[in-house]
């Protein structure tokens, strides 16, 4: 995971990363063998809709009823995990793709991160609605994104690689000093 750039305002710290290992996993979630393969290779079960499961090395996010996104927090392990998954899913109707180059990941830190995202996203970001473990795919401004909480004061946002420089500009603009007022 390489920090590409960062932007700091009074209330918000934005960091952009690339090289984060990501694997797209397609398959039939209700299939016992699929579940078993997943538990064996990732030590994580299938997450519920709109949620993400994490352990020390990996996060597993629910993208759609037949798609998961595996995020590999430890550098250099992607290829190995992909091979393991491919091996354990052999013979099952499934698809494992390394998509590490497809997206960029942003970390937004600061107590007002909800207010920042609320400038562009129509989803309910209240503390009672969007919690640790929630994983939402939505839009921010005109960019398709997904996000989940890292801690009470920080959130990860992913977007398509080609949109990342536009999105970075969007985030920096939204983080301008004097534009964030506590709401949530």
């Amino acid at each position: 995971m390489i920090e590409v750039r960062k932007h700091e305002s009074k209330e918000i710290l934005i960091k952009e990363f690339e090289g984060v290992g990501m694997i797209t996993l397609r398959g039939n979630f209700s299939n016992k063998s699929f579940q078993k393969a997943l538990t064996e290779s990732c030590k994580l079960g299938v997450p519920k809709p709109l949620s993400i499961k994490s352990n020390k090395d990996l996060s597993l996010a629910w993208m759609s009823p037949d798609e998961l996104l595996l995020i590999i927090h430890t550098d250099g392990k992607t290829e190995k995990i992909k091979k393991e998954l491919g091996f354990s899913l052999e013979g099952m109707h499934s698809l494992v793709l390394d998509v590490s180059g497809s997206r960029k990941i942003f970390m937004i830190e600061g107590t007002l991160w909800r207010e920042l995202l609320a400038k562009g996203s129509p989803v309910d970001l209240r503390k009672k609605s969007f919690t640790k473990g929630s994983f939402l795919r939505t839009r921010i401004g005109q960019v398709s994104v997904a996000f989940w909480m890292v801690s009470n004061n920080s959130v990860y946002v992913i977007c398509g690689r080609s949109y990342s420089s536009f999105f970075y500009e969007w985030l920096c603009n939204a983080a301008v000093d004097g534009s964030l007022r506590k709401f949530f």
Partner: protein
Amino acid sequence: MSARISKGGRLLDPSKRLSFSFNGRNLFGFQGDTLASALLANDQVLIGRSFKYHRPRGIVSSGVEEPNALMSLGHGANFEPNRSATTIELLDGLEVISQNHLGSLEWDFGFINNFFAKIFPAGFYYKTFMQPRIAWKHLFEPIIRNAAGLGRAPSLPDEASYEHFYAHVDVLVVGAGLAGLLTTYELGKSGLNVLLVEQKHFLGGHALSGDFEVNGTPIAAWIEKTKQELANLENVQIKKNFTLVGIHDHRYLIGYENLEVAERLGQSAIRHRLWRLRTKKIVLATGAIERPLIFAGNDIPGVMLSSAALEFYKLYGISPGDRTVVVTNNDLAYLAAINLHDAGLSVPLIIDVRDSSNGDLPNLSLSKGIRIEFGKGISSVLGKKRVSGIEMCSLKGEGSVQETIPCDSVAVSGGWSSTLHLWSHCGGKLIWDYKLNTFLPNSSKAPTDENGENFIFVVGSAAGSFCPSQIPQNIKETVSTLLNDFQGVKQKTTKILIREIRYGDCDSTFVTPEGAGEKLKTKCFIDFQNDVKLSDLRLATQEGYESVEHLKRYTTLGMATDQGKLSNINGLKYLANLVGKEIEHVGTTTFRPPYTPISLGSIAGEARKGLFKPVRKTPLHFWHEANGAVWEPVGDWKRPYAYPKSNETIEQAVAREVTSTRHSLGILDASTLGKIIVSGPDAGDFLDLLYTNVMSNLKIGRCRYGLMCNENGFLFDDGVVARLSEESFLCHTTTGGAERVHSWMEEWHQTEWWGKKVFIQNVTEQYTQITLAGPKSRLLLEKLGGSNISSENFKPLDFLEGKLAEIEARIFRVSFSGELSFEIAIPSQNGVEFWQRCFEVGSKFDIIPYGTEALHVMRAEKGFIMIGDETDGTVIPQDLNLGWAVSKKKKDFIGKRAQERIFMADPCRKTLVGLSLQNSSDKIPDGAAVIIGGGGKRSNEVIGHVTSTYFSPTLNKPIAMALLKGGEKLRGKSIEIPMEFDKALKATVVDPKFYDVEGSRQND
């Protein structure tokens, strides 16, 4: 004169003096003032001119209903026209200019006096500017355009920042008057998440001008106390300067937060914030707006609403005049009389159109010795730019003057209209209340949400509770109903006691005197901003405009910036009289969002300049930027169009890029091409349904050019499909088509052929795709090393997965340029490294980067089609001589049935041909119409159009492709392309393959 006095002024901070300028004059006000109160404090009674007649106008109200006090603020990039002075919080250094006058505000050359006004009646424009037609363009339109609009448009781009904000709340309470505060308090105690919004810069609404007590605490102190208590509740938020401007379907609301003051004080980076809210329930505590009474001269500066007179005094310490006559049809207006009297100002007379009133307020006035005349009215207001007196008459009768009373201010009240615009936005209906003389929400025709349930509740004077003492009970009941929809939330009622005041019945009179003749009626204004008078409404109904919607448009009643907040109800009442109906049968015009004007900046939000529209960049973008690329937008992408050198024009650069690629080696960033993986046991079958040709029999390691049609049979995308493995295909799409084709595949898979076992994954962004084209491309790849791409081993349309320069790569032998060419897909992260390696190694092969235009020129030289150029949504593959790529064997594919329709096989369909210009210095315009040529009188029949046109540096002549009726049959024939001034270009129909027809170069 109007002036600041030492009493009243609940909102003022007299220790903070603010200076501002009005038409260049330096004036002073205090912190807490609105611009309107500050102008009145400086005796600025004349503040603007009306739209049509340029009549002198004064401040009529103290709120958003104000029709007259429109101002231009600021200068340069901060200039803003048409702002209402009653809604602007005064700020130190504010620059204000009045509007709509030719010459000065005092001496306006545009003024149209009463005599000339008669020749500008309702519908004047419709009737006058009809004939002769030529005069419209050269005479009428320029004059009207010059007169149109109020303030000047800003001349510089706005430099302020705006933004949107999305929020979800349980309950939104609109309006922080007594009812809004009490509701919020009650809901807040129950634990719900509540947002209270108030359009003004203070809490309390009309109640703050009152003198009653709540639970023994004077109202102003109670408001302050309640504000503190609400601030301590974590589940409650209060926003001032926040107007809820629209209620839309499915409980979607638009709010407008005005942060101008905070912005100018350096406390906010944002000027206006547009809120996009979703709530479960909404409580409207929007209060009521006072209506004027109508009498001759009611537009003369110095005539204002009684509520405005009261509020200016109570909140801002303003005396509206030294001598104020009050004229009313209800008890509430007496509050103004009593307060002004108590302030030591003269109230010579209260004219009450009613026969009597036994309310507490009239009795209190009498006990204070204020003279009241019942059953009277105003015949005329005297004065021109300012009130100098009134003429009293009997209400019944035609207005013969009984007494002339000198005064410099008139406080008027024609009753109160509950503010129900928001109730109506989403379909709520209104019902006329004859006792209260106002429309009230019709609870049996309430607006409904997505569950078909009522979601808007109305409390306080908006619901007809005009007496404060009624409000606590009203709220207790409403909150109890509202909470039914929140499971497990308990109501916690606080006991609220407000002493009852007895009101006399109000009266439906709205015009004085009742028998006013035409002479008076032409001076009786209903809509102050647009100069609509009683006589105009009479004329309109006489001419047949009896429907309220027609009347509005014909007379412009209620079409001004205030949207008829003062004038609508009076207009409807008068219309009802004229057509002999009750007001409830006349109906209202439709209330539409926004409730008050909002800035265009707030609607745009942050989407301006660089953030207007997303720009997609490939991993190599920065390299192109550093190497002087000029850009072409393709969808959201930015692609290099060409790389002109410092001494080159763009055309020269394109020609150089084409020539160099054809002679040695060109490199192109093709990363934007769509790449979609289709994988699963049924992948081949599935693709057979989507492409016109067969994909299932493609061999592993091979590529095939494929076409996609829609169900109409029309071609919409093309690209190369590669078979990666038994179950896995990689489908390339056009740059603009990646998302479209991906969702097209998903749609068919999810909604028609969900039984097919395939997974579809868009991997466009995963790869940097690079095209190496030209006779030396193979040499370069060999030099990079790692894969066997020799001509024996790696044939056209082969593909392999291997390594190049130690980097994992997929290599496709495909050509869109007609040269020996390889497309290489590298994981995005490694793209830059690979691209740079190509340049390092390629320098000995004269490698140059080429852009999209060179790509297009080369494909046109080869007669290859381009989606969007040769196709326009009505073209089938057969039209483009691509019938070979449409399977005849397959039982079904998308578009097959459509292509069986007879007109798809019509020999008259336009088909693709090449055009060779007879004069090589000519340029064919893109999209030009083509006609059959041939001396003498030209045939005007258009036989088709030009789809692509370029100058070919390879052939050193212009080339073009066209879709022509008859197509191939015209080969060798001469056609013409008509140009301006009766000229025409002559061309010959040729084969669209202009260069290397046999394809020996790409197959080398």
